[in-house]
């Protein structure tokens, strides 16, 4: 045994229910040394970090928040596979100690799997404030594992935790067993002898087989154990009189409730009176009030984003204009070449600058989303919409990915991982791009600002609404064609309402806004430079004129766009480059028209009309997702669905723009 000699590097995992404070613990342990990536083969986020303690380097892997280790949910499968394949030196089970029994369910699953568990009783402040005492000595003895008490959001107990982690490899508890009662145990023993699954404890495999675990069954499908399992299951169910899964669950909880009873001094009052959160829920989730309240909430968010964002945006706009001129004259003064002047002033500052102008609006939008998430309202929104979603043939859980899509389609598409049914998931992914992402916002602000200055908020809201309505219609259509069948039931834990902390919300907002900035820095920058280049060659041509390569490219598309009212080559080019990233549309227009004295707004006003502007915005809303989103769709599904997503959005976008323009133009002739 290696008790005296501490290993130089150690790997641990954090496991726990959602809302148990696991993320806080992870942040406390790893601080800034974090890395976010993906679990291999899937796009579920994998967080890993490091810290040093006593000369030892500890790697911490944050497992997804889970309730158990069955095979039904992707998150649970990821956790299970990780534990078996990588065999971490320790697993810290982060528990909400005020809900001991429920949280311990996962712990028993971990122990049955043979993990080296350290039990971290978190949220001890809640427990103490309710006057409850937990006999950790007793718990520790029965479960055979070390226990640490913490209050993670205050940083208490972290040192004890690190100490326990350091000591974990030295101690090994006894093998843990839940007694499933005589008859079941008998069958377990029978199967155990035949169930040999490399890497998995045989008892665990036997229990899982009885439970009907699909993955374990599949792994053993060609062995003689399969008929034996069926035989055991039938025998037991006949004997018990009800289904085996329920029986196993009951035994586990019988064990747990006994354990909790013996180790807590004041029984946690299981029958809480309706507290504040519930009273709030009565109103917010009400059948009649729920949806109107939600819509009002969304309207409020939009007004906030625009009335607060506008003055800040103007300031940045003015700054960019000044910067462009200063750089331009600065270079001329030192005798620099005109092409450098053009590249910096027209190309980069003009292009990237016109996108950065919208940073305040986007940050406010992410701020609003962060507040809604932190307060707990977002989870309720899924339920308020569930009935409606159901009527539309969608799943209530589809709602949150769609809502995220308003910030950026990429996390929106990835959030569909929470949908257990593949059909529901793909359907939600297909319509997600219709949720107008924040990158399209600059386009709306520019055009709406130029043509509908007094009704900017209203016009933009109409576009978002249109996106939603289209999503519903398209989802219906696709469901009828490809995804006939029932929608999976919605089961979700609701966190209590809480007052968002300023720090938490700002951190969240910054995480997402910085993604936007990174995009500006890389894809948009490259795209804008590329456009500047195509606009400047062949050499000697006037910048961004029709004779440049880019002008010729735009002219190819122009005739297609004429029926939609914007048949100019500049519009064609801008839309074309919107495939790179939607922010590039504005950036392209900024570059092509140059940041003149009058500014981009006036340039727009002379090349579009109010009607064609609206048609243009509709096309921008619907047509083709950006490259990053397309890549995400491909990763989450396959080429077939990706192809469908791309083609339907192009056709629909163009078709709608044409329809709107033609009908509008016709109506105007009637006046």
């Amino acid at each position, binding site marked *: 045994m290696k008790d005296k000699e501490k290993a130089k590097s150690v790997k641990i995992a954090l496991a726990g229910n959602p809302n148990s404070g696991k993320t806080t613990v992870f942040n406390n342990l790893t601080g800034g040394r974090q890395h976010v990536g993906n679990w291999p083969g899937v796009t579920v986020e994998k967080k890993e970090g490091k810290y040093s303690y006593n000369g030892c380097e500890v790697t911490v892997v944050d497992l997804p928040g889970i309730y*158990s280790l069955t095979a039904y949910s992707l998150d649970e499968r990821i956790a299970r596979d990780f534990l078996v394949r990588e065999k971490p030196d320790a697993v810290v089970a982060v528990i909400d100690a005020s809900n001991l029994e429920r949280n311990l369910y996962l712990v028993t699953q971990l122990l049955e799997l043979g993990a080296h568990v350290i039990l971290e009783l978190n949220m001890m402040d809640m427990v103490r404030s309710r006057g409850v005492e937990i006999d950790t000595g007793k718990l520790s003895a029965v479960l055979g594992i070390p226990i640490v008490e913490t209050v993670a959001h205050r940083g208490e107990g972290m040192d004890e935790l690190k100490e326990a982690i350091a000591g974990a490899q030295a101690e090994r508890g006894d093998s843990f067993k839940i007694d499933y009662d005589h008859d079941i145990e008998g069958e377990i023993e029978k199967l155990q002898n035949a169930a040999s699954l490399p890497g998995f404890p045989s008892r665990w495999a036997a229990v899982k087989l009885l439970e009907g675990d699909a993955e374990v069954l599949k792994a053993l499908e060609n062995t003689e154990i399969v008929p034996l399992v069926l035989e055991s299951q039938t025998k037991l169910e006949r004997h018990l009189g009800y289904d085996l899964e*329920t029986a196993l669950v009951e035994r586990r909880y019988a064990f747990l409730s006994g354990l909790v009873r013996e180790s807590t001094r004041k029984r946690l009052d299981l029958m809480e009176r309706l507290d504040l959160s519930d009273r709030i829920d009565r109103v917010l989730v009400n059948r009649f009030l729920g949806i109107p309240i939600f819509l009002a909430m969304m309207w409020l968010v939009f007004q906030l984003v625009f009335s607060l964002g506008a003055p800040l945006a103007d300031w940045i706009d003015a700054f960019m204009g000044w910067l462009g001129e200063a750089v331009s004259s600065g270079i001329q003064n030192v005798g620099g070449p005109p092409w450098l002047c053009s590249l910096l002033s027209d190309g980069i500052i003009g292009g990237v600058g016109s996108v950065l102008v919208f940073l305040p609006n986007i940050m406010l939008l992410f701020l609003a989303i962060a507040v809604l998430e932190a307060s707990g309202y977002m989870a309720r929104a899924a339920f308020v919409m569930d009935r409606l979603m159901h009527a539309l043939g969608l799943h*209530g859980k589809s709602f949150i990915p769609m809502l995220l899509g308003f910030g950026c389609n990429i996390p929106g598409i990835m959030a569909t991982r929470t949908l257990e049914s593949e059909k529901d998931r793909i359907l939600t992914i297909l319509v997600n791009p219709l949720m107008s992402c924040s990158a399209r916002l600059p386009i709306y602000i520019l055009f709406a600002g130029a043509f509908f200055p007094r009704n900017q908020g209203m016009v933009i809201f109409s576009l978002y609404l249109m996106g939603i309505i289209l999503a519903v219609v398209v989802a219906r259509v696709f469901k009828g064609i490809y995804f006939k069948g029932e929608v999976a039931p919605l089961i979700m834990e609701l966190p209590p309402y809480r007052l968002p902390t300023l720090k938490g919300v700002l951190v969240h907002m910054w995480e997402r806004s910085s993604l936007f900035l990174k995009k500006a820095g890389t894809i948009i920058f490259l795209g804008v430079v590329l456009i500047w280049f195509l606009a400047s060659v062949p050499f000697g041509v006037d910048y961004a004129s029709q004779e440049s390569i880019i002008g010729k490219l735009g002219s190819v598309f122009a005739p297609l766009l004429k029926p939609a009212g914007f048949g100019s080559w500049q519009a064609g080019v801008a839309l074309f480059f919107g495939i790179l990233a939607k922010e590039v549309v504005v950036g392209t227009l900024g570059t092509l028209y140059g940041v003149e004295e009058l500014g981009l707004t006036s340039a727009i006003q002379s090349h579009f009309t109010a009607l064609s502007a609206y048609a243009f915005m509709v096309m921008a809303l619907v047509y083709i997702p950006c490259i990053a989103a397309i890549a995400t769709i491909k990763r989450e599904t396959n080429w077939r669905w990706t192809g469908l997503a791309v083609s339907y959005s192009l056709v629909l976008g163009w078709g709608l723009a044409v329809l709107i323009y033609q009908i509008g133009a016709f109506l105007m002739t009637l006046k």
Partner: protein
Amino acid sequence: MPLSMVRPGERVRIIEIKGGRGIVGKLASMGFYPGVEIVVVSNSPGPLILNRGGIRMGLGYGMAHRILVSPIP
């Protein structure tokens, strides 16, 4: 009786969960299984919200019919 018939504010005990694949197990791992007492927070009708010792669970449309409960006097 099915959970769908319980009025908000009432306490009931779960008797049976008629689940398809994994619903029994999933609800159980979240703390809801036969024998426990719960309070119905919202069922106006609309989304069904249950409370068990501070754990709040939302059940979507259709689930309420599948859970059988008995009232607690």
